[in-house]
């Protein structure tokens, strides 16, 4: 629930409760005052009529005054009660207040009832109800307009800023530029966020530079070590044991090199602008990669079936898209089983690569994560799919991994 609505709801509920209490309070107070007044008047009128009875005037004016002859006095005190009387002209029961007393005039006993109509009191209730309802309705309408205005004045910049925050990435390398608000709390929040983003950008940059520098330093060192191993291998009197040791060191150094290169590429894959784009016919790249790996697949007795008829061209960097296709197809070979299949299908803007393989035990959500290796046996860096994912993200291609016990399937939707 929005803050403004939450606050309005509180206001509304509390106002309604307050109005009910006020209504009841005012109604009962007024009612009491009026009743008291009516009683007072009834008593005065009662006394007046009594006096007229004493003077011998028996005024009967039903339903307001009724004088009934009685044999005896039942009660010496007067009694005031509410009652309702049928009024023939109105054809309904109307409320009345009455005072009943007994009069003794020279041995004649009379029961005297003096009444007054309570219709005014009923009117009071409805009048009050109408006044309160109108006030409450006006309050709600005013509240609605205040809400609209506040939302526009206060919350528009707030929502603008919120949107900025949602789309913000430290990779943008600029700090947040938030809209100023008229509200102090929001301004303070903006200030805190801006400084937070500035700090994050600075630290992100520093970290990025550090890892880039580190990678380049490593590259240089690896280059030297690699060249020295290659020279060692040229020794004429090399025995098998030494050769194997060098081979093992050299092999692992190559893996380190590969890992380092992948990390450099991953770090660079932050912005499209770093890579020149051109129009590329996808099927050409796919056929090229498949042709390159066909012999490797054959040593594993894999059957590659390609169905690439789509003439789709995409606008992106040639080396990057080749890396994507290359990583996916080499993966489908690496993680396949003996005599397995690889089906590559390009139709419309969708590329599907499906291959048989051992079951995937990991979490499919983490499939494209760094170092989430399905098997330890291959020489893969564990970064291949992370790179694929990042390149797809860079160009806004959706990528999916589907899996049933025998088949792994990766689908890319090119734009």
């Amino acid at each position, binding site marked *: 629930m929005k803050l403004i609505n939450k606050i309005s709801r509180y206001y509304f509920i509390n106002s309604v409760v307050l109005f009910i209490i006020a209504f009841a309070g005012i109604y009962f107070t007024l009612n009491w005052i009026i009743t008291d007044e009516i009683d007072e008047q009834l008593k005065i009128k009662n006394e007046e009529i009594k006096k007229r009875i004493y003077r011998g005037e028996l005024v009967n004016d039903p339903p307001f005054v009724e004088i009934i002859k009685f044999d005896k006095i039942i009660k010496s005190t007067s009694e005031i009660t509410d009652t309702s009387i049928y009024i023939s002209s109105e054809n309904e029961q109307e409320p009345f207040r009455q005072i009943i007393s007994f009069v003794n005039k020279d041995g004649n006993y009379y029961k005297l009832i003096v009444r007054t109509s309570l219709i005014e009191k009923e009117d009071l209730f409805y009048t009050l109800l109408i006044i309160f309802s109108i006030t409450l309705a006006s309050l709600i309408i005013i509240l609605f307009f205040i809400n609209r205005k506040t939302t526009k004045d206060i919350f528009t910049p707030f929502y603008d800023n919120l949107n900025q925050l949602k789309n913000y990435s430290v990779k943008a390398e600029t700090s947040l530029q938030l809209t100023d608000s008229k509200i102090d709390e929001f301004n303070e929040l903006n200030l805190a966020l801006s400084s937070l983003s500035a700090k994050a950008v600075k630290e992100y940059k520093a970290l990025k530079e550090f890892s880039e520098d580190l990678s*380049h330093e490593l*590259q*240089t060192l*690896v*280059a*030297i070590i*690699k*060249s*020295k191993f*290659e*020279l060692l*291998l*040229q020794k004429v009197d*090399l025995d*098998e044991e030494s*050769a*194997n040791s*060098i*081979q093992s060191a*050299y*092999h692992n150094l*190559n893996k380190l*090199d*590969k890992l380092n*290169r992948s990390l*450099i*590429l991953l770090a660079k894959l932050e912005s499209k602008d770093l*890579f*020149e784009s051109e129009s590329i016919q996808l099927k050409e790249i796919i056929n090229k990669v498949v042709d*390159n*790996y066909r*012999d*490797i697949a*054959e*040593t*594993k007795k894999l059957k590659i079936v390609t169905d690439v008829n789509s003439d789709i061209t995409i606008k992106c960097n040639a*080396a990057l898209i080749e*890396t994507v296709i*290359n*990583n996916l197809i*080499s993966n489908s*070979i*690496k993680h396949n089983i003996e005599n397995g299949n690889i089906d590559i299908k390009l139709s419309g803007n969708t590329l599907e690569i499906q291959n048989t393989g051992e079951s995937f035990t990991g979490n499919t959500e983490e499939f494209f994560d760094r170092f989430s290796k399905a098997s330890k*046996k*291959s*020489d*893969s*860096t564990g970064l*291949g799919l992370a790179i694929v994912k990042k390149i797809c993200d860079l160009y806004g291609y959706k990528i999916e991994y589907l899996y049933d016990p025998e088949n792994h399937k990766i689908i890319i939707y090119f734009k």
Partner: protein
Amino acid sequence: MKILIIEDQKELADSIETFISQDGYVCDITNNFSEAKENINLNDYDCAIVDIMLPDGSGLDAIELLKKIQPKCGVIVVSAKNSLDDKITGLNLGADDYITKPFHLSELNARIKSVIRRRNFDGNNLITINELTIDMDTREVKVSERTIDLTRKEFDILLFFISNKKRVITKEAIIEHIWGDDSNTFGNLDFVYTHIKNLRKKLSEAGAKDYINSVYGVGYKFSVE
């Protein structure tokens, strides 16, 4: 043949020199831009290996100078950055090839050979080793005038061997040369063996000497006297 190595990592430059001088190349090593300028002004080179990142300047400037003074000299750009910009700028300045650090010495050597071969092209583009004749234009291989039919990859492997003859070439270097940078991650590298086995078979069936020897599990060597 005279080669200029402009590389700030002295140890790497020494490795390159040791590896390529086996073929009778004479190398001049410079570790910075100012020395490189002197060398370019003083000597004639057939090929230069130029690192982009130098302590006192950019290797790109060295390429520009080299192309101005010695237009016939081949240039191979070496960069630690896998940066396309360097590659494009380097090639636009007239560099013949581009290689990223770290590289296999055998790969660099093959590139140098290729650049020199292209630069010194004088009508016939033939490589002859004893009974073997390789025509670079038609990609035809003959053993004592008898043409043998090689697949594209077999031909490329043979050429890679010949460029690095008398040296041990690792399986990794062969794979990267033929299948590309990304292909070294296949746990099983036996597919190289299949190609080399076929190549040896075709050569020996045509009557060639068996030049290609396996060196333990490490790689292969093209031995020729």
